[in-house]
Structure formats: structure tokens, C-alpha cells
């Protein structure tokens, strides 16, 4: 076959984690792209053989730092369903607050990296400066900046008092101001539009066919968001998925940017409706038995946990389908036909998380 094979990654300035692409190019145009992995695979699912089902909470939190809290949430919700445990209302609302804080810091991290990939270094630093406020909230409320470790089977391990919720609201007002100030550049700058509009476009049918999830799917006109399942307290809060129609890098950027405001709104709603009461229920009795599929919406999209238990301490099988794992096949369609110089921007537009992929 004609053309040149160009190895892209695993070490590349635009990649925070090691991902390798074999790009077949003709002149400066990509003809085909084949992803390759295996640089940081940890086999965490296999740890379920030697860590009991409670210890596995600490393991799944470490699948990925950026969506650590929601990994633990999905796993705990799966086990709660198997064990017939109903977390108290306050715990469900607290789970929403920490989940949306995670989504905020993940999207801000991505927007910063995306800005950096396009040459906007100052914007990158400003976005991460705003993100620091979210990290400070995480540290003040959970004791950790990244891996919050708040979820347990039956609820959460920490609570928020009225002083903390008031402080969170005042910090979010500052975050909102910062986001708003940078929106003019992110959404309307000539260079950003030139680099992103029409690049790596996926139609609605292609996104569905390729099994895309999260902002990738919503940017192609599919109104799907696992939060609509109503898990935790999402069923008691008002929100509608952010949907764009163009399916290109710009549309993905717009979806994630709009979801920043959506997350702030959800946190405000959750704090306003935060019920009094316990934050967890005691879980006693036999270990879980049976099989269950649990899903939640991570910043990058749908996360699916399959859990099979036999009534013993150790799970029979834990399988984690992370959102980036679902979005990577789309690269084989998005990259062919674009110029080599656009590969970093298109690649980043899926918000790749290799920790998740190589769990």
C-alpha cells in the first residue's frame, strides 16, 4: 500500500499520557489511523481476585484521577443494587455535588490542554488557575484534591456543614466569572474556529455506529446522558443534556464548555435541596451475590461496571468499560482525510484518558 507510516506518540507534546497512533499518510493527508496501547496497563480488574469487594473501592478510585470519584460511585451503586442497600437522601445529594465538582475540574483541565494544543498558552494557564478553585474545594471538603475517597457502600464518608456549602457557592461564583471571561476566546476567537470547525466531524449516525459516549455523542446531535437515568439525586434535579449538531471539534468544545455552567447549576440545586439526615447506612449481612451492570456519566461519558459476585469476599468478575475506551474507535474514522497538522487537535477533542483505557 502506498504512503508513509508515521508513528504519532506515545510521547508527544500534546499527549499528557502515552497513546500511540500509526498514521498512514500521503503527502500531508492522513489515510488511515491505527491506535496502539499497552504502555501503562495495570490489570486493575484482576485485582478483584485478591482484594475483597470493599477494598476494591480504593482500587477503582485509582482507575483514573480525573474521574476517580465517579468510578467509586458507579462501583458502589452496583454493589448497593446487588446487596439491596438504599443510601440515605443526603448521601445521594452529596454524591451529586462531588460528581459535578469532578466534571468541572475535568472539563477545565481538558479546555486548558486543548487551548495549549492550539498555541494559547496564556489561556491554558488561566483555565487551570480557575480549576485550582475546584481542587481547593475538593481538598477542603474531602481532604484530597484528586482522589476524594468519599464513597462507601451505603453512602458517603464525609458531610458538608452549612459553612462549607456557603463557601462552595461563593467559590463557584468566582469560577463562573472566570469561565465567562474566557468564553469569549474559547468560543469566538478566529484561530480557535479555524483550527476546530469542520475538523474530525462525526455525523449522528457515525457517532452511534461507533459507540461514542458523552460529549462526543452529544456534539453529534444525540441527546444521551447517563444522568438522565436518575441515579444518586439526579432524578430530583432539573437539567437537560447539552447537545450540538455539527459533530466537529468545535461542537465538542462547545458541549464541554456549556457543561461547565450546567455542573455549577446542578451543584447549586443540590446544595439548595440538600436534605438533613445521615450520610450513610450501616451495611451488614452476607457479601453480595449475583450479577449487575451499573452505569454513570463521567466527564468523558458513559462508564459501565459489570460486577459478578458469588456471596464470598472476592468478586467473580469486575469489568470496567470506561468512556475513553468507547470513544477511541471513532479516531479510526475522524482522522483519515485530515491534514497531519490537525491530528493533535482532533485527537485531543475526544478528551483521551489513557489511565481509564489501560485500567
Amino acid at each position: 500500500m502506498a504512503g508513509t507510516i508515521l508513528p504519532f506518540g506515545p510521547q508527544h507534546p500534546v499527549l499528557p499520557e502515552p497513546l500511540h497512533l500509526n498514521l498512514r499518510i500521503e503527502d500531508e493527508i492522513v489515510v488511515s489511523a491505527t491506535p496502539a496501547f499497552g504502555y501503562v496497563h495495570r490489570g486493575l480488574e484482576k485485582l478483584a481476585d485478591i482484594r475483597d469487594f470493599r477494598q476494591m473501592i480504593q482500587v477503582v478510585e485509582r482507575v483514573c484521577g480525573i474521574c476517580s470519584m465517579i468510578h467509586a460511585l458507579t462501583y458502589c451503586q452496583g454493589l448497593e443494587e446487588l446487596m439491596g442497600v438504599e443510601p440515605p437522601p443526603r448521601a445521594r445529594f452529596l454524591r451529586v455535588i462531588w460528581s459535578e465538582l469532578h466534571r468541572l475540574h475535568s472539563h477545565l483541565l481538558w479546555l486548558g490542554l486543548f487551548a495549549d494544543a492550539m498555541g494559547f498558552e496564556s489561556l491554558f494557564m488561566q483555565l487551570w488557575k480557575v480549576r485550582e478553585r475546584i481542587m481547593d474545594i475538593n481538598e477542603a471538603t474531602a481532604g484530597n484534591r484528586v482522589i476524594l475517597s468519599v464513597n462507601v457502600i451505603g453512602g458517603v464518608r464525609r458531610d458538608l456543614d452549612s459553612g462549607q456549602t456557603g463557601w462552595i457557592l461563593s467559590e463557584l461564583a468566582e469560577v463562573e466569572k472566570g469561565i465567562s471571561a474566557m468564553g469569549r476566546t474559547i468560543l469566538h476567537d478566529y484561530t480557535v474556529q479555524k483550527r476546530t470547525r469542520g475538523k474530525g466531524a462525526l455525523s449522528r449516525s457515525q457517532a452511534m455506529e461507533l459507540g461514542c459516549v458523552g460529549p462526543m455523542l452529544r456534539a453529534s446531535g444525540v441527546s444521551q446522558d447517563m444522568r438522565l437515568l436518575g441515579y444518586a439525586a439526579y432524578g430530583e434535579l432539573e437539567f437537560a443534556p447539552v447537545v450540538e449538531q455539527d459533530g466537529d471539534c468545535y461542537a465538542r468544545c462547545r458541549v464541554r464548555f456549556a457543561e461547565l455552567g450546567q455542573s455549577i447549576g446542578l451543584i447549586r440545586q443540590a446544595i439548595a435541596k440538600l436534605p438533613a439526615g445521615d450520610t450513610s447506612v450501616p451495611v451488614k449481612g452476607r457479601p453480595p451475590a449475583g450479577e449487575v451492570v451499573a452505569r454513570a456519566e463521567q466527564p468523558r461519558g458513559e462508564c459501565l461496571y459489570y460486577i459478578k459476585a458469588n456471596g464470598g469476599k472476592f468478586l467473580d468478575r469486575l469489568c470496567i468499560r470506561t468512556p475513553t475506551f468507547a470513544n477511541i474507535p471513532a479516531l479510526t474514522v475522524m482522522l483519515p482525510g485530515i491534514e497531519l497538522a490537525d491530528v493533535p487537535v482532533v485527537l485531543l477533542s475526544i478528551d483521551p484518558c489513557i489511565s481509564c483505557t489501560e485500567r
Partner: protein
Amino acid sequence: MTIEADRIDSVELCRAVAAFKAKGCRFVTITCVGADQRGAELLYHFDRELALSHLRLTVAGDEVPSICGIYSAAFLVENEIQDQFGLRFSGLVPDYRRTLFLAGEDSPPPFRRKSGPDQEE
């Protein structure tokens, strides 16, 4: 508690998966529940407007038909299952031949059980 799934065999797999595609379902993933020298059990998950449907495939031996001709996105998870469980997906494109995550060494599949799917290793 058990997941409600239609039980199928290898012969019926592609027809059943094509029926999900015809209904407009999104392919979610394949879970390999367990595999050993006697066979394997796989769950195929599909989503339609937030409702999940499942197919449960039980195979004797190591050979499973690939569904990447129907849902091309399945190539990634099928290659992962080849790496981890040592199954072979016939018709898989691209086929990494157990080098998706592994470095090509001739090691036993790390997730494959030595005895049966329901027994401790």
C-alpha cells in the same frame, strides 16, 4: 440477582447483533465473564434510549465470531478479550494478535482461569 439476557450460541450471534443494529441500538461493550479450557461466557451490551439489552453467548472452545463487521467499534474490546482471555475472534479487523496491551510475549492469558468459569483459580 441475574442480568436478564437472551441466551444465544455462536451460530446465532451475528444475526442477533444485526437485529440490535437494525433497531438503532448503540453498541456498548462486550464483557467476558469468564473463560477456561472448556469454553467461555460473553455478555454483549446494547443501549437504546438509555435502556440496556444484553445477549449472553456461551461458547465451547476458544473460537468466537467477531461482530466488528456489524459494529466496527467492537474491534477494540474483541482485541482486548483476545489479550486477556486468550479467545480467538474469527473475522476480526484489525487483529492485533494479542499485542493490543501485551508486548507480544508468549505468556498465558492473564485473565483466563485454569479451572472453570465458576471456580476459584
